[in-house]
């Protein structure tokens, strides 16, 4: 089956903000689970109240990973939070490594 309509894309990066409802739909977390992760510092929203929370679209990808990891390894919130922090650190180190590799002379 071919979809002939051209579908626009949404960038999942820090320049796009995602509302709470969309975040819940994209990550698959319940509101309680998301609040737990926010309280553990694994995910950082903006906004003065829970209802007004918005998230960096990049965060939605982290939340999706969190949802997968929590299920696949039966992690509790503390474990999920810790793993996410480490994954973020690996991402940052890999980004830095790619940048330095670009500067190496062949």
């Amino acid at each position, binding site marked *: *089956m*071919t*979809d*002939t*309509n*051209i*579908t*626009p*894309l*949404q*960038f*999942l*990066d820090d*320049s*796009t903000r995602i509302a709470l409802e969309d975040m819940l*739909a*994209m990550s698959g977390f319940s509101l309680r689970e998301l609040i737990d992760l926010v309280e553990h510092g694994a995910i950082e929203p903006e906004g003065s109240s829970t209802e007004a929370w918005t998230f960096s*679209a*990049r965060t*939605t*990808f982290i939340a*999706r*990973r969190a949802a*997968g*990891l929590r299920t*696949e*390894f039966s992690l509790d919130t503390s474990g999920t939070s810790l793993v996410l922090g480490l*994954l973020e650190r690996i991402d940052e180190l890999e*980004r830095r490594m*790619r*940048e330095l*590799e*670009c*500067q190496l*002379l*062949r």
Partner: protein
Amino acid sequence: MKYKDYYALLGVERTASEDDIKKAYRKLARKYHPDVSKEKDAEEKFKAMAEAYQTLSDKEKRAAYDQLGRHQPGEDFRPPPGWETQFSRGGADDIDLSGIDLGDLFESLSHGRRGGARGFSGAGHHETFAMPGQDFEATANLSLEDAYRGTELNLDLSMPEMTPDGMVRRVPRTVRVRVPKGATDGQRLRVRGKGGAGFNGGPPGDLYLNIKLTAHPRFRVSGHDLYLELPITPWEAVLGASVEVPTMEGRVALNIRPGSKAGQKLRITGKGLARPHGHAGDLYCVLNIVLPAAPGDREKALYKELAEASSFNPREHLA
């Protein structure tokens, strides 16, 4: 239908306890999970293991799987007579199982329980509550030129979908997307509503794209910045020069200052990849001082003269 040996995939005996199966899965998941593993083909291996675990960790599915008997992995086989009926309370004995993926078959069993599918309903319930479709992830390979200018892509996907016979089957789908300027290597994009179809009126899932840029013969990519190795001669490094350098939009003049060093980065602002909501990245020229492969007699003589005239000692600190 091709046979998959779920026990072998998890490395356990067919008599393994639930606990043994869980332990084996955890151990392998730790090794092959795409978020933590650097093993080759980790993602494919993890998907296969996860499929095996989803079936063997569920008593009813495991019993149904065991009833299929033992076959060689990849071998074409047919379930024993009455197998569909035994595990169905919805009259599923007339379902055509040819060409169906074994994992999808057991996925149908899950949907049957949730009330979405006809047949294979172990619990015997047929509620029809709406369920959103599954999200999918796919890799979109782009050339640097396409990422720079933006492009349209036809993504050929194979998605499990509920067919009218109530079974989950792989359905080929082509999704057309417009990738605007601003995508770069490792970028994640969401294509809303282009995942799996929803069940019982539920909304469709989303498609998530991971952008992968193919290697470029000239430019290297870091985020939205581009890097170009720029060869210069020793005398250009010492005396300075104006040289032409390629960019994604044609050639520009670049000033090399006197006394430039190898590895030094010269920035050309805004000549990198566009950002979706901000300034474009930059182009960095990394200076590489190169020597003639085969210097002529005159060049050698001049180097000799320079050696005699210069008191420069780069190894002074090692003395």
